[in-house]
């Protein structure tokens, strides 16, 4: 199961403030795309447009060549899942309750807990390593476990496309690595198409197949990490003086600030 998500000449403005200007992008199928750039460059807005949370002012987002804003929202939810940046669940919710919510686009008021739902939910919880904590309250989890629970929810949605908005923001270094490794493993096993907004360009270079760099509402560079993470590019995107060296473990480009 694959699906193609792309946008053409996307422009988004709130009143007089332009957030995205003429952005065109196709997510490579079965690959991880990282969207990077300085604060307020429009990367989160781009992700929100891609999953129809935001309607663009001009241009179009297309899902399998159909304009996404005209598709039935439930049909879209069976193709595209989103892990938002700020996640908050109603109080008193348990891990399993949250993961079951991921089944929403496959459920109906009268069919809320089919055998398929049960199997997929159990699998998703196991996949993120929370089986032992499935009955715990979300509020009792640590930051890393909480993020895993939300990832299990979007996994249960069972979509070919997965969008993640800064999935590592509130986590310490080892947990950042854990979450991104989990995303990488899931993507490989299930052949998912993934796009995620990341702040850390070194993590992006390590875990993504393609990097899209935005600056001032526009795409300024796109391609494999080795093509995008170069000293002149980083200098242009972030205005940052740095050196780029291959990382000693895997040889991905790694930036060292001056």
């Amino acid at each position, binding site marked *: 199961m694959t699906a193609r998500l792309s946008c053409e000449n996307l422009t988004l403005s709130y009143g007089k403030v332009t957030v995205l200007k003429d952005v065109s992008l196709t997510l490579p199928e079965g690959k991880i795309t990282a969207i990077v750039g300085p604060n307020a460059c429009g990367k989160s807005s781009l992700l929100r447009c891609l*999953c*129809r*949370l935001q309607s663009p002012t001009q241009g179009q987002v297309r899902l399998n060549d159909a304009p996404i804003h005209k598709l039935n*929202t*439930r*049909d*879209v*939810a*069976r193709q*595209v*899942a*989103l892990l*938002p940046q*700020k*996640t*908050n*669940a*109603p*109080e*008193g*919710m*348990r891990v399993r*309750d949250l993961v*079951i*919510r*991921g089944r*929403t*686009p496959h*459920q*109906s*008021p*009268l*069919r*809320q*807990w*089919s*055998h398929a*739902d*049960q199997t997929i939910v159990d699998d998703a919880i196991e996949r993120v390593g929370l089986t032992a904590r499935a*009955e715990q*309250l979300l509020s009792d989890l640590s930051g890393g476990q909480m993020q895993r629970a939300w990832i299990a929810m979007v996994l249960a*949605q069972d979509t070919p496309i997965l969008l993640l908005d800064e999935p590592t923001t509130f986590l310490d270094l080892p947990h950042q690595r854990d979450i991104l490794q989990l995303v990488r493993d899931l993507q490989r096993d299930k052949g998912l198409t993934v796009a995620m907004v990341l702040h850390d360009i070194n993590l992006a270079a390590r875990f993504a197949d393609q990097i899209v760099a935005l600056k001032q509402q526009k795409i300024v560079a796109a391609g494999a990490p080795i093509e995008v993470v170069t000293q002149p590019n980083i200098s242009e995107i972030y205005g940052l003086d740095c050196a780029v060296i291959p990382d000693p473990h895997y040889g991905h480009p790694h930036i060292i600030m001056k």
Partner: protein
Amino acid sequence: MSTVALRLGGASFRLARRVVLVNLLLALGVHVLLLSGLMGGTYPIAGADVVAAFQGTADPITSMVVLENRLPRVVTALGVGLALGLAGEMMQTLLRNPIASPDIIGFTAGAGCGAVFTVAFLGTSTLVVPGALAGGLLAAALVIGLSWQRGISPGQLVITGIGVTMTLGVVTDLLMTRMDATAAAALVKWLVGSLQARSLDEAKVLWIGLAILGPLALRHQFALARVSMSEEVATSLGVDITRARLITLGLSVALVALAVAAAGPLPFVAFVAGPIAHGLNGKNRPTLLTAALVGAIITLSADAVSQLMPSGFGLPAGVFTALVGAPVLIWVLLVHYRKQRS
């Protein structure tokens, strides 16, 4: 925490055992109250005689008391309680605020005002239901319109709603001054919330409405539970948020209008049913059915207490729901603001 999976044909549900148990106990309580409502009061009637009255074999006095006096009263109390419980829990869930129930944010006052308006100007009580519905819808539109801040903002809505409730109270009082003294006196009793002097025909209107809206409300719980997560999450899960909100508001106003047309604006039932249901179910959901049953228990109990009063003290049931409701309101306010501060 233990849950049970219910699967029957294509339908399937997952329910917490505690929720199932609570609902069964509440349903049992409702039945007990219904029966005692038919048997008890200032003129006690044995259970066997009540059954005989339904079979048409009882003596004329017993038949009259059971079928014409008590039956319309208890079925009205039951229907009103269910309707208010559903409406309250739906609004509180939608706005994620336990204070935002229809009786506090102006829907009930609007429905009451609409009903009084039809009686005052058209001089008939046959159009009370459409009048209450129109009043409730207008009040809802007014409250939402005035509190709109690039979307529905729950906090603002509660404050605006309280203002609208007060304003509509004045409008209702003004309307009453146009009426003659006896009509106004009868309406005052109704405006406090009364189950007295109900006829089976009036109860029928309530129950037909409830038979349509009740299942719709329970069905809508699926979308409502998801809307009460965050907007982003609900949308990306494929829930049409605007549609779900409008349906919630529509169902809630319609249920309140039905209840108000049948028994007047019984205070606090819609407000307390939800918090009590949550207390009974613990952290488990769903609570819509529980809230409806709690609402029914409150109205049936209020009716039972008002019947126990010595004759001459025929206080309307609304006085008793207010006696229960006011302390709960204060308690919820304290808990709510303590939570906000921490």
